[in-house]
């Protein structure tokens, strides 16, 4: 099962390697990882997507928590949540395909961010599955380069608040 963990960390040198070292040392896998400062510059938020059965996820959560520099660990996927990922794709766009590329990008509410005579670079944001669907559609046309941010996620506010 896929799980999205949100981890608050002390924003200090070496902290990220404690987290990644924990995963590699114990044979847990990381599907994606995204980290940046929070409003408090002393604290960063790390969003991590991993897979495993309940007992593995329980171990991962406990082990993360055991790291001294980790402040809080939440398994966001246990709750209602929103997740987003951004992708930049450079795609072949020659005269026959230029219009089609634009149509697809439009359907996915993407934006063209760079243009040349033979390619477009586009920016698209969405859930990991939406991004995957887009990639599947564009592949036959010809993807020249692709960069993904990895997932970030946030729990939804509870209804009665």
């Amino acid at each position, binding site marked *: 099962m896929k799980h999205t963990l949100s981890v608050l960390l002390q924003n200090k040198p*070496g902290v990220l390697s404690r987290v990644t070292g924990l995963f590699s*040392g114990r044979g847990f896998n990381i599907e994606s990882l995204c980290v940046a400062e929070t409003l408090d510059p002393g604290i960063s938020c790390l969003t991590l997507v991993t897979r495993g059965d309940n007992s593995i996820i329980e*171990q991962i959560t406990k082990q993360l928590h055991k790291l001294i520099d980790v402040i809080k660990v939440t398994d966001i996927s246990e709750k209602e949540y929103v997740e987003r990922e951004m992708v930049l794709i450079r795609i072949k766009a020659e005269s026959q395909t230029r219009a089609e590329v634009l149509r697809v990008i439009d359907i996915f509410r993407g934006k063209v961010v760079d243009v040349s005579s033979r390619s477009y670079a586009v920016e698209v944001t969405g859930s990991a599955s939406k991004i995957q669907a887009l990639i599947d559609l564009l592949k036959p046309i010809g993807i020249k380069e692709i960069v993904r941010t990895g997932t970030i996620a946030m729990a939804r506010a509870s209804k009665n608040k």
Partner: protein
Amino acid sequence: MVKMTGSQAIVKCLQEEGVKTIFGYPGGAVIDLFDALMDSDITNVLVRHEQGAVHAADSFSRVTGEVGVALLTSGPGATNGVTGIATAYCDSIPMVILTGQVPRSLIGNDAFQEVDIVGITRPCTKHNYLVSNKEDLVPVLREAFYIARTGRPGPVLVDLPKDLMAGQLTYPEQKPIRMQNYQPTYEPHIGQIAKACKQILKSRKPVLYVGGGVILSDAHKALEELAINLNIPVTMTLMGLGAFPGSHPLSMGMLGMHGSYTANMAVAQSDLLIAVGARFDDRVTGKLEEFACNAKIIHIDIDPTSISKNVKVDIPIVADCQYALTAINSWFSKEPGINIKEEAAQHEAWLETIREWSAKYPMTYKEEGELIKPQYVIEMLDKLTGGNAIITTEVGQNQMWTAQFFKFNKPRHFVTSGGLGTMGFGLPAAIGAQMAFPDRLVIDVAGDGSIQMNIQELATAKQYNCPVKIAILNNSYLGMVRQWQELFYDKRYASTVMEVTPDFVKLAEAYGAVGLRATKKSEVVPVIEKALASNNVVIMDFSIAREENVYPMVPAGKATTEMLLV
């Protein structure tokens, strides 16, 4: 606000933490700190190899319960200490390791004797720090001691750039440490305690399975109270030996790969396993699916990651072992309508079964005329020391025979590398223990292979008047590995025959120590008596039956009921 050098600040901080003895080895990066130490009342024990420093400081902690401190220079000094740090980490020993580092301006430049020791030790420390500015120096040290000794203890490394130690700083006032992100749970959940107690009341075949956590949290008294009041048999892990008196009728000795028949059978047939400060290590459980498969499991541990890691637990209790056991004892004394005597009597039939197992399959070995059986040496050491010595061990058969045949009746009297199984641990550990208790008898039970891994520490023992006794169970083999080869590799003794071994008697003499040798059984007692009468360092070289094996043995991966017996 007092101004001083960084080195003086470190010394002052160590004094505030109550440190009197440290173990270290100098070098360019820590020369300022050694200089400052000279003006203090702290003794540095100058070892002969940094691994020895860390093991000795580790052992100092194991026997006293205090935080052990080692001081190493940068680069090779620090890397030489890594095995020691990993050893302490695997056995959850509270330590602070101070390492020198190149000046801040050179960090990252591949400077002379620069290594990223914080990077190297990240997976084998509880936490570690590179101090990067002078305001942090003292607060980081204080935090290091705090982290080392609280929660599940462990080694904490602090890397100290040379320029910070040479430079000036203002010494900050002491204030209580509160860390928002680190708050170990000591108090047990009271609902879980009640659940556990009710489960104990339902049980007819309970077993207490206790580990090093009981010793680390000084919970032995509370454990004794629980076991004796309710008549519950106790088995201990290697790290748990001494947590409950080995001579007590309720003790079943060690469990697991080389555990007693009784302990392994009892765990297999028990209906309730009460695990306290133990972690279901593979050397204890054997084949996981069959471990305690008829039992409900209560697990008390201060580290939540230990719980349900290998074995699914029915009643988890995250707490300090002492707090939890005390809470259980007080539940039984306060809960209305419980007659402890009657409850204890409910276990009589179970104890009868256990007594039958012990009578039928005791921990034993075969005598063979004048051949020296290693088990006999251990029995005689136990007898002639009145069980009062602090025993350290090396690793291998020597370690297992000691665990099986020495009756440890008190906590903090058995010092051994359990989790990592580090050969070369025993001699520096003996020195660490002797520095902590100069008046006690300290004996390292060694193998001929292991003792050669840190034999240089004989000089340290001599220099600091540590009259440790070393009993080498000499089989001229890397015996434990040879045993596996005999049993599972067609007796192909690949690289386990020590064709050249030094003359340990002469070697002892070369260091100014006493060397004694026994080659037949009748010489064993006189040699031990002579050694115990000496106030010098003594090596006793016992030529033992070369191919003696450690039994019982559970082959790796097998269920613990599938024991090979003598």
